[in-house]
Structures are given as C-alpha cells and as structure tokens.
C-alpha cells in the first residue's frame, strides 16, 4: 500500500507541476507550488517508511516549514509589486 | 609551535578577518590587517627556509592521516608562492591606507579590510593545501571576497565588472568541481598525492581525460588565459587601485600555480606529456594572448586598463613556459611568476598613487606628471622597463630564461615571437612615458607628490625589481629546484 501511495503522490506532483507550467495567473503557480510542497512532505514521510528508516521525518518537517515560508514570501512580494504598480498608475493620472 | 607553521599561515588571516569586523574602526582595521599580513609573511619566510633545508612538510589537519583527513603539504613550489603572495599583500597593504580612504566610502572601509584578509587567507589556503576539494573551498573564499573588493570601486562599471567576474568565476569553479568529482569517481580519493599515485592506473579512460579537461578549462577561466580573459580587464580597471595592485600581483599567480599543480603533480608530467597537442595548444594560446592583449593595450586610453591587458599578455608568457613541459620552461614560468608579481605590483601601485593625487588614470590627464610627481613617475618608468624586459631588471631575467628554454627545444619561431612581443610592450609603455615626461602639465591644477607612506612601499617594490634583476641567485636556485621536483614527482 505504501508503494501505491508513493506512486499516487508522484502522479499528483506531476499534475501540480503541469499546473505550475500552464499558469495562467501567478496565483495558480503559487497554488501549484504550495501543493507541490505538501506532496513532497508526504512523499518524504512515506518514503521513510518504505525504506524502513523513519528517522528522516525531520526532513519532512523542514519541508513543511519551508513551504509555508515560501508561500508567505511570494504573497508578500506580489502585494508589494502591486502596491508599486498602483503607485505608478496614480502617478500617470 | 614551529611544526604548526603551515596551518598558522592560513588561519592567521582567516581568524583575523572576523576579529577585524568586530574591531570596527577603519584605521584600527588597517593596522590590524597590516600586522596580520606581515606576520603571514614572516611565517612564509620561515616555511621557505624550512622546506629549503629539510624538504617538503606535511601537516595533517585534525590529526587524521592523509587520504582520510585533509593534508597541508608544503614543498618548494608552494612555499615560494606563499612568500610571493604574503609579501606582496603586506607591501601593497602598507601603501593603501590613503588610497583606500580616497576611493572607498568611509563606512565601508572596515569591510574592505575584512574582505582583503579573507582574500589573502583564501589565496594562501589554495597554495598550502594538498587536498583537491579543499582547493575548491578556498578558491571560493578568495573569489567571493574578490568580487566584493572589486565592487567597491567608485565607478558604477565596477559593479558590472564584479558581476561578470562572479558569473565567469563561478562557472570556472563549478568546472573544477566537476573535474574533481570525476577524478574522485575514478580513484576514490581527494588527496593530491594519493591521486597522483592512483590516477596512472586509470589514466587511459575517457572519464579521466574529461576530468582533466574540466579542471584545466576551469582553472584557465580563473587564470584569464586567452580567449577566456574577457572579465579581467574590466575587473582590474574598475576595482579600487589598491585592489588592482593586490590582485594583479597575486591572484593570477595562484591560478597559474593551480594549473601547474594539477598538470604536473596530480596528473603527473607523463600524463600531461601524453597529450602532445595540449602542450602545443598552450604555446599557441600563450602566443596569441601575448600579441592580441598587447595590441589592445596599445589602444587603451585608460592606463590602468592598458596595464590590465598587459597582464593578460604576461600570463601568455607564463603559459608558453608551461607548455614547453621541460624543466627549463617550468623554471622560466616560475621565475616569471615571481617577477611579474614584483613589476605589476610596482606599476599598479604607482598608478594607485597617481589616482590618489590626480583622481584619474586616463592618459590625457597625466600630461607632465614627471614635474608634479617625479618619484611616482620614475617608479612607473622603472616598472615599465622591467615589464619590457630591459637588462638589469627582473623582467629581463625571466624573458631570458624563457627564450633559452624555447631555444633548447629548437623552437626558433617561438623565441623570435617572444622578443617581438616585448617590442609591443615597449610601445604601450612608451606612450605613457611620452605623455608624462614630454608634455607640459596643464597649468590649472596643482598636484603634489604622493605621500611618503605610499612612496615607501612603492619604491621598495621598484628596488626589488632592480635588485632581483642583478642578484638573481635566490629566485633562480629556488625555481630550478622546484621545477626539478615537479617533473620528478610524477615518476
């Protein structure tokens, strides 16, 4: 069953990846990246059990953490860029 | 304590750098850096003496013996280069305080000295280590600090030069990393001597050939060998003057050292000799470098840039000596390493003095400099003469040995071309001399001679240029032995 889960996870990762490629908006990509991250966390956890060395959960934890930080970072940046755009437009007017 | 010399050489500047950051004040930082650099010079002198008398020293870091731990191995070759690098750093540092104060913003000066120490530590680390991967680590220490030093130049072009160098340098370092990785895959070791023993077994595999190619191309990128030299003139021209003097005198030397080390020690003279086209390629590239770079140098308006191009040309000479693959050729290369460090140090330091007083190193701005700054102008001329290779200067000695070495191989045309190359050097030096001595200074500006603290180290270098041009015993005997040792090691 673990193997099946691993394969499913890989499949879902591929799906998320293609969404990240296609876009079309930035938010789709962020969504895909976030989803990809979550899948990675699960994958690492499952692989740990599959290989019989579940100590590696630490890594999964780091992934979860990094994923969260990454998403926040991206969102903050987009907000910032948009503020700037708005300012620029106001200048035009 | 004497047995710890090899490691002290490197960790002294390495540990001094963070301490320097804590110290804070630029004046303090300068004094501290100078003291550290001087101490490193003393250590390298002791090391050279020790190696000269007793043969190579091995030092096992962490107490783990060679193939398992990292080994520092000092033989004649790197002891000699350690001395060059640390002493040039000391001399240049002695004369830089004013020039740095003028060219670098006040709040960045401490960081400037910190980077300087890190760069010094990185260069010394590359020289001292006997471990291939350790080379990569210290290469990056020195490179990263070099990028920082270059970017501190006043012109915004310095930033661009630094970025270009960063890209090229990282590609070079990554190539070296690939090469080391491939070597490791084939031999299972990273220690240079161990590699030298184990490589011949697998020498005819294509993997090792590719490893060799990757390492050589990577080093050549760092070395700025023609046609991979495009980053160098920009980097040298826009870096702060003191940095240019330091880098020109040391960084390329370390790259040449790496080339020698990998070609002769690690892969062994036999392996290098096996690929005969490679040697001819080196000679050809060297000659092209000499000519193209010298010609471009003649056309430059900015003297700093012209001398930077001349560095590319001089590297060409060193590569020719290397490409010969004989003891005499190697000796000529090593001699030229030493001599080039002396003359480029002197030239760039005099330019630093000019930049300090005039605020520019453009050719047009230097009219009549001999009346305003006679000592500096004189120093530049002597350095230039040495660059050309006039008798009684160091430049002559290395050209002499190089020509002899080529003649030994029966390569008449090469020897002739080397001499023609020197004529080109005459042309770009003469242009400067003409402007400095035979044109009237513009009446409007008042410029005084450079301060003593700059002149003193500058003239120290100039005198060294002449002294070692007359009394050649020390460098010649050291390099002769080093060259012999290199060729003998592989067997």
């Amino acid at each position, binding site marked *: 069953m673990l193997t099946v889960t691993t394969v499913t996870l890989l499949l879902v990762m591929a799906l998320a990846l293609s969404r990240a490629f296609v876009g079309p908006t930035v938010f789709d990509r962020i969504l895909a990246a976030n989803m990809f991250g979550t899948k990675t966390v699960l994958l690492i956890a499952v692989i740990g059990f599959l290989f019989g060395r579940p100590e590696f959960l630490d890594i999964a934890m780091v992934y979860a953490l990094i994923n969260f*930080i990454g998403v*926040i970072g991206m969102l903050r940046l987009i907000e910032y860029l948009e503020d700037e755009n708005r300012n620029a437009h106001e200048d035009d007017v | 304590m004497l047995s710890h010399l090899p490691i002290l050489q490197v960790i002294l500047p390495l*540990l001094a750098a963070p301490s320097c950051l804590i110290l804070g004040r630029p004046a303090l930082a300068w004094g501290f850096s100078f003291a550290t650099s001087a101490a490193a010079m003393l250590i390298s002198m002791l090391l050279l003496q020790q190696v000269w008398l007793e043969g190579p020293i091995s030092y096992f870091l962490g107490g783990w013996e060679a193939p398992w731990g990292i080994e520092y191995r000092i033989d004649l070759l790197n002891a000699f280069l350690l001395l060059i690098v640390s002493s040039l750093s000391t001399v240049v540092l002695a004369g830089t305080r004013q020039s740095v104060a003028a060219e670098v913003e006040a709040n960045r000066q401490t960081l400037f000295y910190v980077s300087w120490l890190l760069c010094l530590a990185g260069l010394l680390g590359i020289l001292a280590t006997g471990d291939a991967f350790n080379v990569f680590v210290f290469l990056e220490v020195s490179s990263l600090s070099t990028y920082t030093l270059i970017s501190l130049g006043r012109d915004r072009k310095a930033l661009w030069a630094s970025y270009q160098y960063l890209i090229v340098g990282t590609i070079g370092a990554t190539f070296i990393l690939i090469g080391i990785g491939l070597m490791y*895959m084939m031999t299972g070791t990273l220690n240079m001597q161990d590699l030298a023993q184990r490589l011949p077994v697998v020498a005819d595999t294509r993997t090792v050939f590719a490893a060799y190619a990757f390492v050589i191309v990577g080093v050549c990128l760092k070395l700025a060998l023609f046609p991979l030299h495009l980053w160098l003139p920009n980097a040298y021209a826009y870096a702060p003057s003191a940095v240019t003097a330091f880098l020109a005198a040391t960084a390329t030397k370390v790259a040449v050292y790496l080339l020698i080390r990998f070609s002769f020690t690690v892969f062994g003279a036999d392996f290098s000799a096996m690929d005969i086209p490679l040697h001819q390629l080196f000679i050809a590239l060297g000659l092209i470098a000499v000519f193209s770079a010298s010609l471009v140098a003649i056309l430059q308006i900015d003297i700093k840039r012209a001398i930077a191009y001349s560095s590319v040309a001089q590297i060409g000479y060193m590569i020719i000596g290397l490409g010969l693959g004989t003891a005499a050729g190697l000796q000529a290369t090593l001699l030229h390493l030493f001599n080039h460090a002396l003359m480029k140090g002197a030239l760039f330091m005099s330019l630093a003095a000019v930049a300090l007083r005039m605020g520019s190193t453009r050719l047009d701005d230097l009219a009549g400099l001999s009346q305003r700054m006679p000592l500096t102008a004189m120093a530049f001329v002597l350095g230039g003469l040495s660059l050309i290779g006039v008798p009684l200067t160091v430049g002559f000695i290395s050209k002499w040995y190089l020509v002899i070495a080529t003649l030994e191989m029966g390569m008449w045309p090469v020897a002739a071309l080397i001499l023609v190359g020197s004529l080109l050097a005459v042309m770009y030096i003469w242009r400067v001399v003409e402007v400095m001595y035979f044109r009237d200074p513009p009446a409007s500006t008042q410029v005084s001679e450079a301060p003593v603290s700059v002149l003193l180290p500058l003239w120290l270098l100039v005198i060294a240029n002449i002294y070692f041009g007359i009394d050649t015993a020390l460098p010649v005997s050291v390099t002769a032995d080093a060259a012999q040792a290199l060729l003998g090691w592989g067997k």
Partner: protein
Amino acid sequence: MLVATAIGIAVNRDLLSVVMLSSIYGLLSANFFVTMDAVDVAFTEAAVGAGISPLLMFTTMAIVGRYEKLPHRWSLSALVLVSITGALLLVATMDMPAFGAPDAPAQQHVAPRYIEQSGQEVGIPNIVTSVLATYRGFDTFGEVTVIFTAGVGVLSLLMIGDRATKPLSSHLLKASQHKILRIVSKVLIAPILLFALYVQFHGDYGPGGGFQAGVIFAAAIIVYTMLFGLDSARQVIDQGWVRVMAAVGVLLYGAVGVVSMVNGGNFLDYDVLAKDPIHGQHYGIIVIELGVGITVAAVMVLIYFSFAGRLVDRGHQDD
C-alpha cells in the same frame, strides 16, 4: 521531472514564475537526494534551494522588476559551447563505473574507513556529521568562512546600518492587515526556533547540524520580518549585534582549532580536547556545530535585512 522543470525555467519569461519553478526544482532535487540516501544533503538542499534562495530572489525581484524585457533569441554560439561541454561530460560517462556499483573506485579507497571506523573513532552514529566535522573539519571551516565572506560582501554592497531609522513606510503599515497570518506565525515562531535547536544538537544522531539549524533559525526571523515589517524586526534583533554574532561563530570554530593546537594536537584535532579521545571528539563537534549554526543564522538574517532594507528605501523614493 527535473529536466522538465529546468526547461520550463529556460523558456519562461516571467521572472516570478521562473523563481517559483526554481523553488519546485529545489524540492525535486531534494527528493532525488533522499532516494539517493543523501538525507543530510536533502535537508540542506530543501532549506537552501527551495527556501532561502528563492526568498532572496523574490526580494531582489521586488526591487529590480518582474519581467524580462527583451524577447529571447536562440544564441548559436552559446548553444555550440554548451553542446561541447555536454559532449565532454557524455564522453566522461562512457568509462564511468555503473551507477550504484559497490565495487566502484569511489566506494573502495577512502570511504570504507569512514563507514567502518568512525563509530569507534568519533563515536557518533551519523557518519556524514563525523566526516564533516572531524575528518574533513577544515573544509567545513572553509565553508563557514565562505558564508561569512558572503555576509561581508552583501553588507558592503547594501550598507544600511549607519542611517537613522526611518519612519514606517506606507507599505509596512499595510502589513498590519494580515491579521490571520500574523497570529498564526506568532504561534509558529516559537516552535520553529525550538525545532532549530533540536536540529542543531540532534545532528550527531540524525540528519541535521549547524548549517541546517542556522537556516531554520534564520527562516523564523525572516517570517517575522516579512509580516511585522523590517523596523519592528530590527527592534527585536539589533543589526550590529547580528554582525558581531556572524564573526563570533567563525571565531568559535577557529578557537576550537587553536585550543587543540595549544593542547598539543594538530589544528582541529579534537582528540586532545578531553582526557578521552571520544569525549574530545564529542566536545569538538558540538562546539564547532554551534559555531557553524551561529554564523549561518547571523549571516542569513543579515543578508535578508540588507535586502529588505533596500526594499524599504525604494518604497520611500516612490512615495
């Protein structure tokens, strides 16, 4: 998948998507490292390739703009150069030992000693840590120096420390709207810091160590900075102090080496740090890992502060 992502990066012109893809690329390669048994590497690659470096790139992008201007043309000379390099590597693979072969030279000469004897000689289960910290401890010292050098470089390029604190820009005030994010992060920061400490000191037994811990620690502070603004983060953590800490980490590492020299061993020879070599090794490794952690955390925070400082400055110019 790695290849596909890389191609995506090459083709895409929206830098934001490029960086996002590169973050995915980082995660993917980390996955790959896990399947290759390189757990420590995967740990680091996840923190660096998918975490810190995209974050820094995002921040840079906020400053330099998001889109590539010029349409991309295929450059023939570049293609040729790349093909030559690729061909060279292809040639290299021809004579390589097969993938995973236990009798390859790389597995034969030096490595077995680490696997067989580090248990007795160093006494900690994680072989990667013992090789990293003792056998090749000097490389790691070099690595810390590299990080320190980068910190110095970034600091000198993006100097901000000496200017008086500026009033909060409009941009930063807007951050106060993220109520939910703020509360959640506040709850999370303490566990993250604890986790960093766990990684720091558990590195002897499992994957982890000073570098990873330093990155995680810095990440917690970066989250705080992102949500509460640079100025309030600077109030919590003084930048001058961070600078000193970056230096202290390197010095701590060096000091271990010097002490072992004074005690009669070679540089970084931990055997002499205590009466019994195994204990000496333990002390040595703990202290140097601490040094690594301190420097890495300090430098990362310093770099992020410097980047974010430029962001705030530019916000001012725009107003």
